[in-house]
């Protein structure tokens, strides 16, 4: 363990910043969260990448502002999809126009938020200090959302969206915890039990939590 700590100190001092190290150590945690939520609870998130991206993005933007941006992205995606549905064009052209919509709607939301007396930005997270990367990461959610919406009905897509955001928020909550950050940096061995947990979930055959609601009728007979 001593050797591991020495290597970690060297990494922090000479290779990468502590912030990057913490972010990297959270990747397995949030991925595991998605894994558990899918196979044990039955959440259908937009894959692993989307909820993970949201969790990290909310750290940059702050939760309230991040959720506002998410809402704006979803509404603008729905709007652009509905408007372009009947227009003949290539797939990528459609997605590009979708992003143009998002850009301007987001810009509008940012301006209104800044000028409005009910602005949700805090002292901690001023718009001027929000890294653009945070907003861009959230905007990428549009791709996942539209792809799902083309194939599934509105409610199913919204259900997946809510579950993705929920996992993103839980991920953000974990990422915020100073104690957990310190614990992960000081106890890198925790990744071995995490690995084993994921192996176990990989073999999990029992009903998912949501299955109990789905098949409730059968159990009542």
């Amino acid at each position: 363990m001593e050797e591991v700590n020495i290597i970690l100190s060297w990494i922090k001092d000479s290779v990468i910043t502590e912030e990057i190290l913490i972010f990297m150590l959270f990747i397995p945690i949030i991925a595991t969260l998605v894994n558990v939520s899918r196979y044990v609870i039955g959440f259908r998130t937009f894959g692993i990448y989307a909820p993970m991206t949201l969790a990290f993005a909310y750290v940059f933007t702050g939760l309230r502002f991040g959720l506002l941006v998410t809402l704006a992205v979803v509404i603008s995606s729905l709007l652009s999809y509905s408007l372009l549905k009947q227009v003949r064009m290539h797939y990528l052209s459609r997605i590009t126009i979708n992003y143009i919509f998002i850009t301007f709607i987001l810009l509008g939301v940012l301006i209104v938020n800044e000028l409005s007396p009910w602005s949700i930005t805090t002292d901690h997270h001023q718009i001027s200090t929000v890294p653009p990367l945070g907003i861009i990461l959230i905007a990428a959610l549009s791709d996942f959302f539209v792809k799902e919406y083309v194939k599934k009905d509105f409610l199913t897509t919204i259900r997946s969206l809510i579950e993705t955001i929920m996992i993103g928020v839980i991920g953000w909550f974990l990422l915020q915890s100073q104690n957990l950050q310190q614990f992960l940096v000081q106890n890198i061995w925790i990744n071995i039990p995490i690995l084993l947990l994921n192996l176990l979930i990989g073999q999990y055959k029992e009903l998912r939590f949501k299955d109990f609601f789905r098949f409730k009728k059968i159990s009542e007979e």
Partner: protein
Amino acid sequence: MPIQVGKYKTILGINRRNQEYIRPYNPLSSKKISDNKILTKRLLAKADIKTPKTIKIIRTKKQLDFFDWESLPKSFVVKPNRGTGGNGIIVFYGRKKGQTAWIRSNHKVMNKEQLRIHFEKILDGSFSMGDSKDIVIIEERILNHSTLKKYSFRGVPDIRLIIFNKVPVMAMIRFPTKISDGKANLHSGGICVGINIATGITTNAIQLKKKSILENTYSKVQYTTDFQENLPLEGIEIPHWDKVLEIAIRCQEISNIGFLGVDIAIDENNGPLVFELNSRPGLGIQMANNIGLRPRLERLKGIESLSIKRAIRLGKTLFGGEVDECIQFASGKQILGLIEKVVVHYNAKNSIKPKKQKDKFQTVNALLSTGILTSRIDEGLAKRMGYEEAISYFNSLNIPPSFETIEEAKKYSKKLKIDYKNHPEISKPAAIVESAKAKVKPSILLEIQINGDSKEIEAIVSTQKDTIYPILFGRKELKEYLIDPGKTFVK
């Protein structure tokens, strides 16, 4: 209504479906067949299995520039080749007079331009698995069978069968409704009705009650919902039922998909036509039949090389459970076959525990024998399941290998002193007749599982030379069951 926790054990969830049935029984090559409707049609055509007639196939957008829209018939169906869950499928019922436009089941009209946009979406892969480019299939619209027409609202009902190891396991029919827009899927609002495998007659019906953000809810329905005179959904006799079963089993033979969902529609003129093969069949069929899939699938594991006729007979006998259910309800007893699969658990009282998970229990065939009172277990099996020490101890008691009469053996067993404290798994010494000789053998307490019930039974350890079955289930344990020899099958 109280929830019966035990019933959840019978339900097949997505996790188990994927791990225990799809991965081991559906090889990648077979999935490629089911995921490709054109390939499926070709393979089935080679085996003389009918599918809806293909009118046109469009592979590229360039083809659309030269597409002869006038050549499309009055009614047809558009499908993506690699679509899932009914996405991208549109059924057209007629052509708008004097226009290049067609009428959908919801009465909406789609003109040439709108249809072209839909075709392009399909070609772009918008409705397909894995987002890859796709192909448009235009095929004839099936002429609804007169028996089923009066139950379906502007659409063709399809029959979904689950076939496992060539045996039909469960079936349902899906009727389109006003709200399902010509589609028959449960989540689109179609009515799903369970079918008794033995008779081909419908039983229990369900429909989507409410779509919600949390989870969709379903409720039982007794009548059709969209007609002036709504008809009862229970008791519909599916036309060509035996032919449907035969086709479904043949589909499995051809596709090599071990755990298969087959969608079949009944055409008025052509009889049963295969719509689709599905290597990841949904689990809603359990709700339509109001019964879990697990016990049915468990019974069929390991079965091989059945002829089609035998597979149909087996499916009908094992899973045509309506009559059985009535008997079970009236008598309060479950119906078992002469031979049943029994799970024997490792001796929990043994201080040495098995290292591997697979050694903790063993599944064997048991003969339900009314000729003996107490159940019997093969000595070899008992030793493997952690009773070796108890058996060695019993053998060390210097008991004579045989007795003149059974009475003598009984007398001896009564006098025998057993150290029950150190060997709690031994219940008593028992006098039995084995290979025409009276003997005294140990009777042990055995934890087993039969037909989903877990129980502790008393079983006499014997060499089982007279039988091929490692476990004989005696009369003591059979009081709770009725035996139907017709249900019997041998691995």
